[in-house]
């Protein structure tokens, strides 16, 4: 047995708790705040807001803010469940096209079966959840990482979206379902506009908020939330203490699928037709929003609020550049810079949190 480093000579052993006071000094409220995963994104969001408030004249108008919130909400509805999945240690590259798949299934089922649009909406929910289950089961039953498995799903769905749409409707987009029974009520749920104090707000903003509230509740206050952190933080340890790892992961993929369903229905009912090639590339936007929001790419750490704020940064930047009448090419640059900053901050947080005395 080798001796340890020399003990701090006169002080009592660290396990007696006799000098708890001395140790308490180490943790200031500021450090505690710094430990929050969403802190970086909130600071970033304030900075972006101030920036565009100064440089884009119309940015502070109520109608502009409503536009920003709408853009943010369509990303946020997906970024929140994608963030939960990332906290659980996995990716879903099929999330972007899954939104389109969900819209296509709903539209085509309603059109071909000439049924009530709500039937299509229901069938779409089942199909989309089944895709989520497929991702989750494939991941937990086989060896490859989720990156590869969902890349496979991504490619298959991309092909299916285009192929089946062409096969069934003869073109790359679906036929309109606007004259069908149930369309107005479904539109009210998924794509209506609410007027508050003379300003129009899209209903997706409410969906977005609901996703954040429910996801935060699950993450911070339920057993499942504990399991999500655990399977992402250390899957083996989680399994060893009896956490149902596979079920948790399948559930997370179903959460992403549910988000894709809501987004897909929004897509369908705001335009009443769907372009079958849409959605490709959005999966990365969701992941970026989650990372900016403080999710660790390696899992085990992050927050739903952070992901929502990440989506807000996205919305503000993309619309802010338009309001400032700049070349939209700058958007990508801003995003890249933001992503790098967020990643550096996260790396620092992780080092702090994992450091062993």
């Amino acid at each position, binding site marked *: 047995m080798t001796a340890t480093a020399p003990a701090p000579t006169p002080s009592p052993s660290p396990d007696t*708790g006799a000098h708890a006071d001395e140790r308490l000094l180490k943790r200031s409220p500021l450090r505690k705040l710094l430990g929050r995963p969403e802190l970086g994104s909130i600071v970033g969001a304030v900075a972006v807001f101030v920036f565009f408030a100064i440089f884009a004249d119309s940015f502070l108008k109520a109608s502009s803010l409503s536009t920003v919130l709408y853009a943010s909400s369509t990303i946020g509805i997906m970024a929140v469940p994608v963030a939960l999945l990332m906290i659980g240690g996995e990716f879903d590259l099929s999330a972007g096209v899954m939104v389109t798949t969900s819209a296509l299934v709903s539209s085509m089922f309603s059109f071909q079966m000439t049924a009530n649009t709500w039937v299509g909406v229901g069938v779409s929910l089942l199909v989309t959840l089944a895709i989520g289950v497929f991702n989750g089961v494939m991941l937990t039953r086989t060896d490859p990482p989720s990156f590869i498995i969902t890349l496979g799903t991504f490619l298959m769905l991309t092909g299916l979206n285009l192929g089946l749409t062409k096969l069934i409707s003869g073109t790359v987009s679906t036929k309109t379902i606007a004259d069908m029974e149930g369309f107005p009520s479904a539109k009210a749920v998924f794509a209506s506009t609410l007027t508050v104090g003379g300003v129009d707000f899209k209903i997706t903003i409410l969906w977005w908020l609901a996703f954040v509230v429910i996801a935060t509740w699950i993450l911070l206050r339920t*057993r499942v939330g*504990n*399991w999500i952190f655990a399977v992402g*933080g*250390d899957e083996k340890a989680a399994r*060893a*203490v009896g956490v149902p790892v596979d079920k948790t992961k399948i559930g997370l993929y179903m959460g992403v699928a549910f988000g894709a369903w809501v987004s897909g229905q929004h897509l369908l009912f705001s335009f009443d037709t769907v372009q079958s090639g849409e959605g490709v590339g959005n999966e990365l936007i969701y992941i970026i929003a989650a990372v900016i929001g403080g999710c660790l790419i390696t899992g085990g750490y992050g927050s739903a609020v952070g992901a929502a704020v990440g989506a807000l940064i996205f919305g503000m930047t993309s619309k802010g550049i338009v309001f400032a009448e700049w070349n939209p090419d700058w958007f990508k640059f801003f995003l890249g810079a933001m992503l790098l900053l967020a990643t550096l901050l996260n790396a620092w947080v992780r080092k702090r949190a994992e450091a062993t005395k």
Partner: protein
Amino acid sequence: MTQTAERTEAGERTALVELDSVSKYYGNIRALEGVSLEVHAGEISCVLGDNGAGKSTLIKIIAGLHRHDGGTFRIEGEETSLSSPREALDRGIATVYQDLAVVPLMPVWRNFFLGSEPTKGTGPFKRMDVEFMRRTTRAELLRMGIDLRDVDQPIGTLSGGERQCVAIARAVYFGAKVLVLDEPTAALGVKQSGVVLKYVAAARDAGLGVVLITHNPHHAYLVGDRFVLLKRGTMSGSHTRDGITLDELTRQMAGGNELDDLRHELERAPAPAHLGAVADGADGTGGTGEKQEKQEKQKDGGR
């Protein structure tokens, strides 16, 4: 060899866990063969052996991570083969692993209750009882003598010894009957090892049966009631506390004769040393039993 069976306890009470010439193969690798172990309530059974001797494999069978390939495994007299760690937990066997005891980034209180979180409320409002969890974690750790400054800190920021103690406290709290510890003191300094051993003893006094895996005969002898020595997957010795001295345990752990041989060779370094010329019983401290043991060891070593 001093067999446990000699000090027979049959009929007195059944062992909490009993392995009888258990074997485990990983493909064509023989990780364990013919290993027996008994764990009784209020006793500590130590498993000693070198790196790769099969210690972790042995406890993975008890913990439900692997199924054994041969021999019998009884829990409270009933023959079993565990299919998952959850099943082992449900049957009262809690394991603290060498490397995967906890999730480093999660707060201490979340780790403490991980997998067995208490809830309150019903339906969609069913939630973890966070207040209770925080309070209990703090109280249980305090009971073990760890005064945490903050149960919200990530468990990865605790020292290795503190982390082991949290894992032990967790097992005790959840009413484990058998506590399995894989090298809890391996990465710890002298002081921290002492702290952990104190909790191991506390768990024993609370009536648990403990399996303690270790490299270190001194640690084992401080607290152990039974000792099983593993060597390259086979059992090279099984003793009760009154059947063996610390010196003998250390000798057997360190390789007994082989170490003596090595010492003598090193002492005679200037002379042209050659293998095989080292005389038997060079130190003459052991009795006949030990001699016999040594010879067996030498045969083993020759393989």
